[in-house]
């Protein structure tokens, strides 16, 4: 074991990610058990950020695969460089040896293949796996257990290093039990007040401890307002930056500006009409 839990926590903080205990433990277990980690949670809670931080901790390269409906092997794994192949065939003007055309030179590595051919184990982020099709999920499962890829024209390519794999899911589609079992699991919730304040201070150094705490408390209340789309951490940061930019250092000092800037947090028309001035005042009233 290369790194202890306490070390990991410290390094995560250095990377700018304030992790709760359970997440740090899950990341630690990834090292011990060599299993992928599945992160679930609402949009905007910082799932993708975890992978960034982990890459930073290990000084590893981050390779990202964004999933979408219709993603297939040629986009995710490898593809032949057809243009070059065609050119090569044409340029020779003689019957070409097929082996030459299907050699490494003409192979385009896509994220998955790339991630197993690194010298140093990279962090592989498979983002929004729930958007990909079931077939792709099954294929991924195979890759995650064998870490080898077979290319008919080239043969089997074995992993030179086993990547650390993080999968994220938004719950667009229920992902299969087989994949869930393969992975460690962590549910990323909205940060609690203290953690959100810590994140604010980390990301926006001139914010000051009291103001950060005040904003975090306001956000806690806003998320209880039953909005259709709860503001995530990114929105919090936007709002804080907007307030600072407008020279507001206290939520009670300038109600007009505060209310106007709150629109950083609201992302749908429906929420906008529901989040009236009265609601805003009620929320802010509860924040000391």
């Amino acid at each position: 074991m290369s790194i202890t839990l306490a070390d990991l926590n410290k390094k995560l903080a250095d990377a700018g990610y304030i992790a709760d205990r359970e997440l740090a433990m899950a990341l630690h277990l990834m090292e011990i058990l060599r299993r992928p980690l599945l992160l679930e949670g609402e949009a905007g809670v910082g799932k993708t950020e975890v992978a960034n931080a982990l890459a930073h901790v290990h000084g590893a390269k981050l390779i990202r695969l964004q999933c979408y409906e219709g993603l297939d092997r040629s986009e995710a794994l490898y593809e032949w460089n057809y243009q070059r192949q065609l050119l090569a065939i044409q340029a020779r003007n003689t019957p070409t040896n097929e082996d030459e055309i299907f050699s490494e030179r003409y192979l385009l590595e896509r994220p998955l293949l790339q991630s197993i051919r690194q010298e140093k184990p990279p962090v592989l982020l498979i983002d929004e796996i729930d958007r990909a099709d079931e077939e792709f999920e099954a294929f991924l499962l195979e890759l995650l257990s064998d870490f080898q890829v077979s290319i008919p024209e080239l043969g089997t390519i074995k992993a030179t290093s086993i990547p650390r794999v993080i999968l994220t899911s938004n719950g667009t589609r229920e992902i299969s039990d087989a994949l869930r079992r393969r992975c460690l699991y962590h549910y990323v919730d909205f940060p609690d007040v203290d953690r959100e304040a810590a994140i604010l201070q980390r990301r926006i150094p001139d914010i000051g401890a009291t103001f950060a705490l005040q904003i975090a408390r306001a956000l806690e209340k806003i998320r209880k307002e039953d909005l259709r789309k709860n503001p995530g951490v990114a929105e919090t940061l936007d709002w804080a930056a907007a307030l600072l930019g407008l020279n507001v250092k206290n939520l009670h000092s300038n109600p007009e500006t505060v209310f106007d800037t709150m629109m950083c947090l609201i992302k749908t028309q429906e929420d906008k009409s529901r989040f009236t001035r009265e609601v805003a005042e009620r929320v802010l009233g509860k924040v000391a």
Partner: protein
Amino acid sequence: MNAVLLRISAFSQLLRNHGFVAGLGECADAARIIAELDSQRPADLRSAFKALFCSRVSDWKEFDELFNSFWLGSGMKNLLKVGGASPVSSQSTLSPMAGKTTGQNDTSELADQISGSAGQEIEDGGTGKSEGASSTETSGHTDFRKIADPMELAKAHAAAAQLAKAMRTRLTRRDRARAKGRRIDLRATIRHSVGHGGIPIELSFRQRKTRPLRLIVLLDASGSMQMYTAVFTRFIHGVLDSFHEAEAFVFHTRLAHISAAMKEKNATRALEHMSLMTQGVGGGTRIGESLATFNKWHAKRVLNSRSCVMILSDGYDTGTPEILARELKRLRQRCRRIAWLNPMMGWNGYKPDARAMQAALPYLDLFAPAHNLESLAALEPYLARL
């Protein structure tokens, strides 16, 4: 060390009883964690086991309590409450209902809701549109209400199930019969061109595989629908059995997810399962509230851009039409089509004047009768176009 292993396997047994997926692999890894973890504090161990044993949100929320009661001996009462190993399937089916994750009391709560009925007055109204058909021949034309003979009823049930299957096969075949694709498949083209000295004479095409439609059925099981519920249930059973992707829900004053219960191969047993969940049939209908529950807790998981939502209801709603309209609007944004099948439309002189129906109409893609098998069959071409 052996004692630890025993405890771990007992713990995983407990988790399995609570619907976790905890197998040998997880147990072995748990033992490894205990051996290798540098901290042995209970809180750290809990986080570690949590990451290992959980595999979905519901597990995540339940885990701490289970861990504490098993390893730390607190909260024993809770452990006993569920120790009777209630069948996992029904537990997970009921739990998302009305947003409460406890799920334990829901059946009893459902049973309590035998209240005064709304919409009973229509029971005696109207006669079937297709009255001229003889009821002795195939029950295709006969209004489901009019089938009294149990044998006939069984036939209608079987036909409904059959119909659901036929829909599925026909839909699939149509997908396969697509013509050539519009994108050139370079990989295959180059392969072919090798034989021609590198000149791509034969082009190969590819088309993205079209995926079959996903069907979500919401069945109104209120008192006013009583005469139709049984046949529709058989229809749903057929749909779930044969469609690759389908989900079913039942609602009256609240919504229940019945897909898991209906996965039972034996249709009669499935019906029993379901009747347990829908006890309280005969109370009023809250279509709007039920849809709200659906939108809030199930829609995200169940719906995608290829989904068709099929609502089987007579539109007699004891809730407010405004809520219904709002929820239908939300639903509309999430799925491809909404089809509302109303058995009463088959009655002579029926006009959709129930207030709820009026509120709903603007958001529907299809509003059609569903009082006999023919009308269900007539839907198939519509579904195929999706």
